[in-house]
């Protein structure tokens, strides 16, 4: 009987540890999911950022790049791309800008989150610099043009002719008190 009690206790302990492990695994899914998206380039998250070696452009191909600017719910800014579509050769560095205006009577801080469609193209869209790396602040009724410098990788699969780059602008003013606005490059560039 004591033997049975010992076996029961061991089994229960193992199973409880299993349960606790799976509880942890549920939380581990959060970074795992992120790592998985980054490794595979799924989910349209752009991980390809920073300086790039200048190489000759592939003039035999044209890729249409479409730009979309949308406000997240409750965001009052005027936010739109200066051009809706540009045609670029893979390998060619191109500058673009988005227009933003703060129509409210108070200072606001915003953060743009990019997304690429089709998501397979995300890993070939290389952003040299982007306003989305930083938080953007505008005083009341102030406006600005926010620049974006990008290159399409020459290895872009031949069946992709159009890439859509969409930015969603989030109001992050309530998260920060004035004067605490940072330009934390390393943190934001992973977005």
């Amino acid at each position: 009987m004591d033997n049975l009690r010992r076996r029961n206790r061991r089994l229960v302990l193992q199973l409880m540890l299993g349960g606790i492990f799976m509880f942890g695994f549920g939380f581990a899914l959060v970074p795992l999911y992120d790592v998985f998206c980054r490794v595979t380039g799924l989910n349209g998250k752009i991980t390809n950022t920073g300086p790039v070696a200048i190489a000759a452009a592939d003039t035999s191909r044209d890729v249409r790049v479409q730009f979309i600017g949308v406000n997240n719910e409750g965001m009052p800014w005027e936010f739109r791309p200066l051009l809706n579509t540009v045609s670029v050769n893979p390998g060619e560095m191109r500058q673009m800008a988005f227009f933003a205006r703060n129509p409210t009577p108070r200072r606001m801080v915003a953060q743009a989150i990019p997304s690429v469609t089709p998501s397979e193209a995300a890993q070939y869209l290389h952003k040299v610099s982007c306003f989305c790396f930083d938080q953007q602040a505008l005083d009341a009724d102030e406006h600005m043009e926010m620049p974006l410098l990008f290159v399409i990788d020459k290895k872009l699969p031949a069946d992709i002719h159009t890439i859509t780059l969409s930015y969603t602008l989030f109001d992050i003013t309530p998260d920060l008190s004035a004067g605490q606005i940072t330009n934390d490059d390393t943190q934001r560039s992973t977005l």
Partner: protein
Amino acid sequence: MDTTLSQTAGIADHGHGPAKGLGRWLFTTNHKDIGSLYLWFSLLMFLTGGCMALMIRAELFQPGLQLIQPEFFNQMTTMHGLIMVFGAVMPAFVGLANWMIPIMVGAPDMALPRMNNWSFWILPFAFTLMISTLFMEGGGPDFGWTFYAPLSTTYAPPSVTFFIFAVHMMGFSSIMGAINIIATILNLRAPGMTMMKLPLFVWTWLITAFLLIAVMPVLAGVVTMMLMDIHFGTSFFNAAGGGDPVLFQHVFWFFGHPEVYIMILPAFGIISEIIPTFARKRLFGYASMVYATSSIALLSFLVWAHHMFAVGMPLAGELFFMYATMLIAVPTGVKVFNWVATMFHGSMTFETPMLFALAFVVLFTIGGFSGLMLAIAPADFQYHDTYFVVAHFHYVLVPGAIFSIMAGVYYWLPKWTGHMLNERLGKAHFWLSFIGVNITFFPMHFVGLAGMPRRIPDYALQFADFNAVASVGAFIFGFSQLVFVYNIISCIRGGERATDQVWEGSHGLEWTLPSPAPYHTFSKPPLIK
């Protein structure tokens, strides 16, 4: 199962029966008492969730808003789903496991009787907490039983916190129940009861218990993340803070897909007990049943994203989850084949449990086929979030899981009560349920394919006729359950005395015990050759 008993089961003459009064039920550690508590609780929740379903169907009887407001309608769909999944189907299977597993493996009780008491008594509190949210300011949960963020976080009613704690409590209860079942099966088998001699109900429950331990903690994790997003300023599911609402769906369905097998594997076990009894043949392909069940359980961890084909997955993902899902049809097909092969050339009789088991085989297979249609990723873009999905999962859950529970209750009721049930009433219940279920859910396939979205209180006029038909069916099915309740109560109160074997073709340890099964059984383990 080819266990032959070398002696009749050892029944201990302890000379003490159940305690008297309410204390018997509050403090009981007897597996039969706890099994009964689970089953009564499940019946109560089944009727509660059923009333909510009838409210939904009454509103959908005609287009336009007649009876209830959209806000309340949403609370009804949500609570109906939650109560049926966590309150009716799961506790019913745990109840059957409590009653049957110890006497099927020749054990005196569950391995951990006090924990058993605790895992049951958590449940009434969890569901009181959850149902009480309906009376709170802002109403109860209204975001669907899948509680997708941000509906369940940013836009949720304040009562969502109570919902989260209720889910935590249910999770604790299920995990403790699962641990207990595994310990009982692995450590308390009678001498000679090897793993490959276990009745299939025991096998399917063993696998289900492992699934529960693997995924209920993930559910607890995901509601904890919601809690932190709502109250502690984290951003797991909030894109503004760097999170991702799609993450919620991945984590939820990592739990959710094994969960649907938690609700069907024990059903497979019950059906695999009943069909051989009434076909008077041994189960065809016992070992293949065990392997099929295990492979279904393993595959269930690899198919979660077929619930989210429309979320914007890359093609490779769509294809992987599509083929993995279709793969599940193979072991499931093995099971259906084995049931049919068991009946083949058997001398079948059609008592109530067998009728429910046969209806299970046919209707669950229909639900399986609509599941295969949904698994086709390109087609799923058309079916996603339509009534076709509602028709599919109700076919696998109502005439699937719930019919199997009813079959199991009718099958073992004479063993529990010592009285044969009223066959005439049982058959009436079966036919009313069978016809009601099909009238309710079959038209939903048509309106779904025609594009009627799910979870709406009002709909376009062209769906009116089929919806009216479905509502009539729902009321037939709903009220026919009163026959079930009456039949159970009258069987407890009296009736023709049941023999020990109860059914002519029954086979297994539980049928060697007297009917009704004594309060303490197998205090001395039976000998199994």
